[in-house]
């Protein structure tokens, strides 16, 4: 094969055509499969589960209401998970033996048990004891889970900051707290932002599991609609697309943020 042919085959146009052919093939497979089981596509039914627009009044449908709950859960868990993650990372790096052991136990327990079991444990065991609501139980379970993973990312970020930065801050008379706050964490955060975004994306996806304790999030709303209408294919496609849009938008925002700050994120 000569060079010219090679370039032709690797050009973006050819790639595009390959991609479209693949997508069409997948679509055809689904269409054929659904036809074979006699599936009756009713896409026109879907919009009213997203929102209705009567007399110029916008009313969110169950799917958007579910999305709102998913976003609330995710936002609360993200804040709490960051707090758990940061505290655990600091404990693991601290001079206190008790602190290090505690952090280690938390990490091992969380990382070596299924999230679904953790959610059930919190909801069925701890929630009645501490009188937690569903929503609170869901948020706590998710933040404990994601916090454990976030702490490892944060710890790696802190350790990656050169020793000279600590020494410079200390020799200026800064306390350890101020050194962390103004010198180490802003630089560490900059470095770990991509991994933390990945973690946030996982959090959004994992939040679907709280539908198992009857929190009416996006997934739960989808299940309910399907139970009532049998629009199985359409609704699951729609739900998946909504999750995809949210996670892509999140990645995009972080990308922009990352390009903006030189060398670090400012806390002040």
């Amino acid at each position: 094969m000569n060079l010219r042919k090679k370039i032709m085959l690797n050009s973006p146009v050819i790639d595009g055509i390959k991609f479209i052919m693949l997508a069409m093939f997948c679509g055809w497979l689904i269409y054929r499969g659904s036809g074979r089981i006699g599936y009756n596509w009713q896409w026109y039914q879907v919009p009213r589960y997203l929102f209705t627009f009567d007399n110029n009044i916008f009313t969110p449908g169950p799917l958007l209401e579910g999305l709102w709950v998913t976003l609330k859960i995710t936002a609360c868990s993200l804040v709490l998970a960051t707090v758990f993650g940061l505290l655990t990372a600091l404990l693991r790096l601290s001079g206190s033996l008790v602190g290090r052991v505690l952090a280690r136990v938390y990490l091992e327990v969380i990382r070596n048990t299924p999230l679904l079991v953790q959610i059930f444990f919190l909801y069925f065991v701890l929630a009645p004891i501490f009188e937690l609501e569903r929503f609170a139980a869901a948020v706590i379970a998710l933040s404990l889970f994601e916090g454990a993973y976030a702490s490892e990312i944060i710890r790696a970020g802190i350790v990656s900051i050169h020793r000279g930065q600590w020494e410079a801050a200390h020799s200026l008379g800064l306390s350890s707290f101020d050194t962390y706050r103004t010198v180490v964490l802003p630089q560490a955060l900059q470095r770990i932002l991509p991994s933390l975004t990945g973690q946030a994306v996982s959090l959004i996806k994992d939040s679907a599991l709280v539908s198992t304790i009857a929190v009416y999030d996006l997934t739960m709303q989808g299940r309910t609609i399907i139970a009532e209408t049998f629009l199985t294919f359409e609704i699951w496609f729609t739900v998946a697309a909504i999750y995809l849009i949210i996670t892509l938008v999140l990645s995009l925002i972080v990308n922009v943020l990352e390009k903006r700050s030189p060398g670090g994120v400012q806390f002040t």
Partner: protein
Amino acid sequence: MTRSESVVKEIIIDVDNINKTYPGPIPALVNFTTRVNKGDVLVVIGPSGSGKSTFLRCLNGLEEIDSGTIIIDSIPLDDNEKHRLEIRREVGMVFQSFNLFPHMTVLENINLAQRLVRKKNRQQATRTTMDLLDKVGLAEKAESYPAALSGGQQQRVAIARALAMKPKVMLFDEATSALDPEMIGEVLEVMNLLANEGMTMVVVTHEMGFAREVSDWIIFMEAGRIVEQDRSGNFFSNAKKERTRRFLSQII
């Protein structure tokens, strides 16, 4: 070297019989004793790995000593965390690798400790910072980030950052060793200026010309021990120990 001889001597750094070992066979510092008068410049020289930097880093508590005492400006450097912070406030340090904070502008680098440790407001801090940047010849770089500066410029900013705390003592840990040859001069010039203003300085350096020019006292050390400690004039013209003479003949 008559600058400090006429005034009344006041000991500002008092290091008495300190010892330090790292894990490994070679001790870092052995029975190390020295005193530095206010306004004097002490230059520490010696072969690589002789413990020069370790000694310097012990002076502001970046390294722990195993035994002995260090007293700086009447504050003992001991287990008391308060003392350690007090000493660090009075002792500025300049590193071989500059260690500027890369996520802050030059101005923010120098303002930081003034605001957090000296509790100045932004205006007061900025005024001091701009004065210091003027002094090191970098006033126009206030809004730049360290990455945009040359090595020599970064080191001058690092000196300004340490000076912003109005320290009583300045430590220089091979401040010119990481610089390209053409940038060494600009940094030595600033250090010279400080010495002439009467700043108490402890300097670890390989620049013998500079050492000879600014120092009041010289310590030559090897394997963690002081081989010879003398007034600068005597030291260079009339070293007593054979080992010192050999070292000097090799590097000058």
